[in-house]
């Protein structure tokens, strides 16, 4: 059955701050959702590592847009990182819900 459900993992990276990287994503609807994990890799092809110590708790089943974010503190200067977000359903199913996006390299601020 094709449900006319719009699940949109609208992911974008907030690069306004110098450090760290903040990964943000927006959902239009969610069904049977438990949480989200964020993965990071050195290239677009990976390898990717989960960087959320615990999943980000989600809103469950909802048709109200939700905004989520995760702050990646563990980055190094002048390095491009690649990120994607994976959803975890209440049945334990994991699914990548965003494309892989690159961060802008951050330089060190000297005082």
């Amino acid at each position, binding site marked *: *059955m*094709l*449900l*006319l*459900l*719009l699940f*949109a*993992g*609208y*992911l*974008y990276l907030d690069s306004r701050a110098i450090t760290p990287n903040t990964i943000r994503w*927006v959902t*239009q*609807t969610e*069904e*049977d959702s*438990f*949480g989200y994990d964020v993965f990071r890799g050195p290239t677009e092809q990976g390898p990717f590592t*989960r960087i959320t110590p*615990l*999943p*980000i*708790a989600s809103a*469950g*089943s909802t*048709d*109200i*847009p939700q905004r989520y974010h995760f702050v990646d503190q563990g980055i190094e200067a002048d390095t491009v990182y690649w990120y994607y977000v994976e959803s*975890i*359903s*209440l*049945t*334990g*199913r994991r699914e990548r819900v*965003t*494309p892989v*996006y690159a961060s802008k390299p951050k330089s060190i601020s000297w005082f």
Partner: protein
Amino acid sequence: MAAWLLLPVASAVAQTAFNIAIPDDGFYRLNFDDLEYAGSAIPSNELALSEQGSSIGFELIDGGDGMFGPGDYLVFAGRRLAGENSWYNQYSRHNVYRLSLDGTGAALRPPEPLAGQGLVVRHMEQDKLRVALSDAGWPALMERWFWQRISYLDGEQFALELDLEGDPERIRISVAGLSRDRHASKAGLPQHQLKVLLDGQLREEVQWDGQEAITVEATLPNPAANSRATLSLQLPRRVLPNTDQAIVDAVLLNWIELDYPEDADLPTIPAREGGRRLVVSEGHRKPAWIRPMTKKGELGGTDLQADYLFIAHPALIDTVKPLAELHRQAGLRVEIVDVHRVYDAFSHGVASPYAIQSFLAHAVTHWQAPAPRFVLLVGDASWQPDSPRNLVPTFQVMGHKEIAASDNGLVTPINGGWRPELAVGRLPAGDAAELKPMIDKLLAYQQADPEGDWQRRSLWMADVDPGFQRISNRLSARAARAGLVRERVYPEDATEDQNAHQARIQQAFSKGALLAHFLGHGGRYVWRTGPVDLQGASDLFDIDDIAQLPAGVELPLVLSMTCSSGPFDHPQVGSLAESFLGAPRRGAIGVLAASWRVPASQAFSRLLVDALLDPQLRVGEAILKAKQQEKNRVLVESYNYLGDPALSLPLPDAAQ
């Protein structure tokens, strides 16, 4: 001086009757001075109190003069309105007791024994979270409100300071599984593991699977060492064997009960179900509200006749009158009915969609012929029963794994099934200011000269998905054969400029149209009309785009054939469908939209389009015909019509 009275319910409730709403179990005090009663004191033996038509005893404090007047009051043991299988009722937070001032045949006796045998129980429950346990069987499925979701993701999980005065012997906790991690089952591990702690000490630990509800019991130290203790509920983080992945474990807390010795010195009332007594708060509570009962009308009689029933919240009646007058001038007999009169006549004053259903069943079967054909619900609804937006309630049905608002059940009056029998529409306004633009649009539309190119135009929208476009092509061809010009507004391919495509949609609406049909993915605020844009979200037509549409009277009837674009029952937020209908002088003249997830269905759209192009049918009748032929119950119940069901589309001559 106190007098004990048990009075029979008056056979005919006079105008001097009051509805008294109470939210919970307890003792309630009703002061004479709180009644909106213009008369003088009433003979005490003419008072009668009832609940759902049954006499209720009460304690009367009338100063010993045998007259109920200023300064006097009565006290009664009130009980909450329970649900079918839940502590509280999902449709009303208030039970309603009725005080009649002209009762006869009083007999002195106490209201009911307040002491006696039976377990003494303190029930604690807060309905904060609405969840459908779609994998649970009945009756767990009928419990839809919970206190809190508990998982290892949720910080401190659950903690509550318990009052142990009275030395409770046992605690019982009702929880239901929410998650059902299949990986845990495959590894031979329980899907849920819950720990119950009191002041940090483990009291009980339980394991279970699925979405079943269980009751956890633990004994308490008796007598209690302290008058207060902290109850904690925790789900430990457990890892699947040979992985670094945690088991998905989430449960829902429903209620907590403390059991006391039978001789506990606590205020109690007998539980409705018998066999136990419920601890209630000390002293007398005030009713939530007191409202004079509406004048006894003829709704429950057989003399009335109407073609079209407006069921309206009283705050909206004046605003909707011009629409009623328009239909009267066109030959329909229209009756505007205050929804409170419906409650008073068909559910003993309790606000409930069942009262509307019963009223319509009565009108169809017992009023003078011809029976009503159209029903307009004037006012918004809310799944939160005490929301100020819950003006004319709707049903909450199980849609695709979740609960969906459905007006369909209100108009299934005779056969009791799920197929509608009357044409129904709703104007989901929260107040007169929201209703006025809807009425203005409906009046302008039906009074304007329909001649023009717009009445030949039909819009067909879909995203880049070839499947959606194929279905839209077939449907639009049917419209073309009926004499309509079809304008298909699809993105040409994945490279089309999003802004240009959104502008094409705006232009298509700006020219006016008889009908607009969208098929594709969507949500509460959006249609996906363009190629997927996960970074910029420029692929979405949303409520801001509706505000940008040009003003005019040549407004389309919108068929929003997508998920969740018309859930009109949220207490705080709106939806795409409500924005289309509520936008002043723009948007849509009516919207058919789903209140939850729905499958794509070419067949349902075809039934709708064919019926809407039948010049013999008004919009509500066309939707009714399509729903009566549709086989998928989820579609029939999830799609609701926001608009005037007696609206006639000004079809061009070729279509007539």
